[in-house]
Each structure stands twice: as C-alpha cells, then as structure tokens.
C-alpha cells in the first residue's frame, strides 16, 4: 500500500460538496446534567489548599494518575529483565511447552511479534474487520438519516442524496474498490465537521483511523489482497487512535458538564475499576467531580500510552472492550460509530509490526548497560519515566484551571 498524491484534492472536493447540504445536531446520547457540578472544583481559587491554588482532590487524582503512568513507563523500560526472569525462573522449570506459551504471552504483553498460527489467523480476520467496518457504519447511518456518525442527522431536503452517497461509499469500502477515494471522502467529511467547531471535529477524530489505510492503498485496491499494514501505517493508526483519546480526555476536563451529564443519564459508565482507582483518597463530597477528573485522566493515560507505543496491545485491548461495552450495553447502536476505533484497536492488538516512540531512549539505555555505565543506565530508565509522567499531566491540569466557564457556556 503506498501513498497517493491526489488525495488532498479529493478531500477538499468532498469537503466542499458536503458543506452545501448536510447538517449536524446534538448527539443521540443524552448528556443533560441532572444536578450541576461544583464548577469551582475545576478552577483556580485562593481558597484551595492544593499547590498553585488548585483544588486538592483534583491534584490528588492527578497524583494517582502520575503514579500509574510513571509505573507503567518504568515497567516498560524494565520489561526485558522482567520477561527474562519470568521465562527462565518460572516458565522454563515447568517444561518446554509452558516455556513456549510463556514466551507467547510475554510477547503479546510487551508488543513483540507473536509468532503463532492462531494469532496470525485472528490477525487476518481483524484486518478485514478494520478495513470493512466503516461500510457497516455508513449503511447504518444512511438508514437512520444521519451523516457518517449516526449522531449527526441529515437535513430533510438533502437527506436522499447523502443517503445514496453513503451507501455508495459503503459499497466501495465493502468491495475494497477505489480505497484512496474512500479515504479522501472520509477525510473530507471529517474536515467538514469543523463547520460545527473544533470540539465536534475532535470528538470524531477516531474516524480518521481507517482513512490512513485507505488513503495509502493503491487505486487498484479491488484487485489485491491487502495483507498486513506496514510498519509506518501501523504507527499512524496507533498514533491517531492514541492521540484522539489523549485529546478527548483533556476535553472532558475542559467541558466537564458534558461528561457528568452522560454519567447522570447512563449510571453504568461509572463502574470502571481504573477510574475508581484514580479517585482513591479523594473527598466523597466531590464524588461526581473526582469521577469526571478520574474518567478524563484514565482516557488521557490510555490515549497517551497508545500514542507513544507503550504496552500498545494492552491499552488497545482495554479500549476495544470499553468501546464494545459502550456500543452494545451502555448506549446501543446509536453509537455504532465506535466500530471505527474498535476496528483500529483490533488491528493494533493483532499486529506484529508494533513500534514505540521511546525506542531511541531504550537504545541509549541498552548502550549504557553494555558499556558498563550503570548510573547512566539507571538515569535513562528512571529519569524519562518520571519526567514524561509529570510533564504529560500537571502542566495541562494547571492550565485547564484557568478555563473561562462563562465563555464555554455561552
């Protein structure tokens, strides 16, 4: 699959065409607050005893997340000796079969190639799901008078043409025909979403995860069997998917009423072990506020991990589970658009071409180890883990305490 030059023109054309007629409304998922949140929890106030005039429970959630993020990064840098210990001291003494299975499991958990026929077969199926599911979403949207995402209803006067356009695009996708055009149309539709503001566009960012593969496919896509995405394609899929949720996590802190509103209407989303862990040690008086903060930071953390390629398979598996639950249990088929990230996460889970953005630090750390410079090696493990965890969380948490709530609501 290689990149096509004319794609951007297609995207512009599609965007221009779409902006003539389609129209988006509020989402089908109810998000009206039943009880207002304590706004001051999220804002600067001299009365707060936390550092830099921040609410202490908000900081506490940040610290809990910092500890988890730092720990995951440390484990990532130390995964090789941990794996060696587990395989040689635990699995090998049990027997050759246990040793080989232990290696397969360790390879899965640490994003190394899993060389197993069953895994490979499921991976081939996952790739098909990833490449084809947008067709299902488009078909569903067309039959529900909406544009791509069922949450953006079409205007009655232009509904027919857009329904046909979506069905045509779905057929092209399902038959793997003119994939670069399909990618351009998805990209164009995405660009069109900016008409309703960056927030709406950001919310739909995961839709782009499949556009990457389509755009970088050859025009003769209907004639070829697309095998595995390349290392670069896989990297783009991972980064787009991860960054989407990283950014959406921060948006949840920024526009917390929306998140709390969803929780008010769908209480089942409150039951999440990681979110509950992040809220440990906080004041129960601010239960809903700390839940919003924890929920948002859980998304920031998982999105960030996927963006930088740290335990990608684990985070992608958690995401695939959460999205499937949201679609099948919490919200229903109105949120079928989650099939985009589900397809993307499946392609990540079963890929044997995963890379990490931290590889260059590891190379330096290993070099230091081979040269016998243990102090440098230690610094290259602990330093980046702490620095990255701190810089990713606290500056943004602090900046968001300056949000102008009045402007946001107007």
């Amino acid at each position, binding site marked *: 699959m290689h990149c096509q030059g004319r794609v951007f023109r297609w995207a512009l054309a599609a965007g221009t065409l779409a902006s003539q007629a389609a129209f988006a409304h509020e989402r089908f998922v109810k998000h009206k607050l039943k009880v207002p949140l304590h706004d001051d929890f999220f804002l600067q106030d001299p009365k707060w005893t936390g550092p830099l005039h921040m609410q202490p429970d908000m900081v506490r959630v940040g610290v809990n997340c910092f500890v988890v993020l730092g720990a995951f990064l440390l484990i990532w840098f130390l995964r*090789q000796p941990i794996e*060696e210990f587990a395989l040689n001291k635990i699995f*090998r003494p049990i027997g*050759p079969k246990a*040793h*080989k299975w232990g*290696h397969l499991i360790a*390879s899965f958990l640490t994003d*190394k*190639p899993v*060389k*197993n*026929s*069953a*895994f*490979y*077969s499921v991976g081939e199926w996952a790739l098909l799901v990833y490449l084809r599911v947008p067709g299902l979403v488009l078909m569903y949207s067309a039959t529900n008078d909406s544009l791509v995402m069922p949450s953006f209803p079409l205007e009655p006067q232009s509904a027919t043409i857009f329904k046909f356009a979506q069905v045509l695009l779905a057929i092209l996708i399902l038959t793997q025909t003119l994939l670069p055009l399909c990618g351009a149309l998805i990209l164009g539709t995405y660009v069109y979403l900016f008409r309703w503001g960056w927030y709406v566009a950001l919310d739909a960012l995961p839709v782009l995860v499949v556009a990457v593969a389509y755009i970088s496919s050859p025009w003769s896509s209907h004639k070829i069997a697309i095998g*595995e995405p390349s290392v670069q394609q896989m990297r783009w899929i991972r980064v787009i998917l991860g960054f989407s949720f990283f950014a959406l996590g921060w948006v949840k802190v920024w526009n917390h009423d929306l998140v709390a509103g969803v929780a008010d209407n769908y209480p089942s989303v409150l039951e999440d072990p990681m979110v509950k862990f992040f809220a440990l040690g906080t004041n129960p008086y601010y239960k809903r506020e700390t839940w919003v903060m924890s929920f948002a930071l859980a998304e920031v953390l998982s999105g960030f991990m996927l963006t930088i390629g740290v335990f990608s398979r684990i985070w992608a598996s958690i995401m695939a589970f959460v999205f499937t639950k949201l679609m099948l249990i919490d919200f229903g088929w109105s949120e079928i658009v989650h099939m985009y990230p589900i397809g993307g996460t499946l392609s990540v889970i079963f890929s*044997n071409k995963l890379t990490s953005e931290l590889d260059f630090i590891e190379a330096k750390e*290993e*070099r230091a180890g*081979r040269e*016998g410079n243990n102090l440098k090696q230690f610094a290259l493990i602990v330093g980046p883990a702490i620095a990255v965890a701190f810089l990713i969380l606290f500056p943004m948490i602090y900046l968001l305490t300056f949000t102008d709530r009045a402007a946001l609501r107007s």
Partner: protein
Amino acid sequence: MQELAQVSLFSKLNPQELQKLGAIAKKQNFGPGTVVFFEGDRSDSLYVILSGSVKIYQTTNDGREKILKTMGKGEIFGEFSVIDGQPRSAAVSTLEKAELLSINHKDFRNFATASPDILWKVLESLSERLRKTTEDVTDIAFRDVPYRLLKALIELAETSGQKYKDGVKIAAHFSSQDLANRVAANPQRISRLMSRFQDETLIQVEDDGLVVPDMKALKKALEISQDWG
C-alpha cells in the same frame, strides 16, 4: 577446566587463561526440546555446547519454523548478539539433553581484551556461519529438494550423530515437518523422499531416531542427486 580445554574455541588458551575463563563461564543443563533463547530476545550471552545438540531456527509470523542449522559438541552460538548487541536473530532450542556453557557479554569482553586470540576463534565461527548462509541461499535457489535433503541429513549426522554399529545414529527425533522447514520444502515431499532413501538403504528410520548405515553411500548419493531431480 579439563572440559574447557577440550573445546576447540578454547584450545589455544594457557592454563591461567582457562582458569580465568572457568571463573566467568556458567554451566547450564537443558532438557530436550528446551528453548535456550528466543528470536528477538535482548540477552547477550555467548554459548558453547559441552554436550548434546541444538537447533537454530527462525519462526514466521504464522508460526512455521525454519531450521537454519543444527550444532553439536564444541560449537558456539549466540556470538552475533555478543558482538553487535542487537536482539537475537534466531531462536535456539535443544534437540536432546544438553550441557551448555554461557559467558555474558561484559565478562567475555573483558576476557577477550586480555586474551585476544579467542576473538580469532569467534571470527572463524562467524565466517563459517556466513559461508553456510550463502551456501543455503544458493542451494535453495539452484538445487532441487533431494539434494537439499541429503545435504541436511549429512550435516545432521556430522553435527549431532553418534556411532551406531557400522553407521551413525541421529538420536534426536526429526519429524517430516522439521526436515521440510530446514530444507524449505513441503512435508509431503520430504516424507516421499525419506521413504525412497529408506528403500535405497541410505537411511533407516527407528523409533528413537534416524540411522545412517553408511555415510560414504549417503555422500555418494549427494553427488549424484542432481540426476534424481
């Protein structure tokens, strides 16, 4: 120390050097079919086979194994990673009960600085490995399956065979799939060829392994194998 002196890699070392080597080398016992290290591992030890035999293999994404080489007593493996620090390029698994000597990168580096002669031995081993790879590529490109299979059987007999009556016994059990992976052919073809070699009395398949009754006959068959294609 006596054992170390018998390993060709260390044959030129003096008693003091052998003693130093004995202090840094770690003896490890592995049961049959045990993986010593996996492809992609970052471990950087060098191994010397004191007894038994091992197979070096790579695995494709869909789980198929390709045996690159089998090795026996006195041979070394793992030297690539010791030198360049890259992840292991292939996996190594024992074919039978084996005793291995491992020396980690740091200790080997210090030892080689004091006794540079050992590096020549390692270079010899690397050159031999490179030569073998080139030969394998040439064989796969230009030779037919019978030739490749006969060559593989001779190599197996020479590296992991033991004297048995008038011939050689390859004690470790090799399935058609193993041999097929090794010579890049399909298992059905290998089964048919093995039956033919049995009919020709070039080999005998026994419950606990494979017997080559006459090595000279097997080598002669290799010479004329192109006509069998």
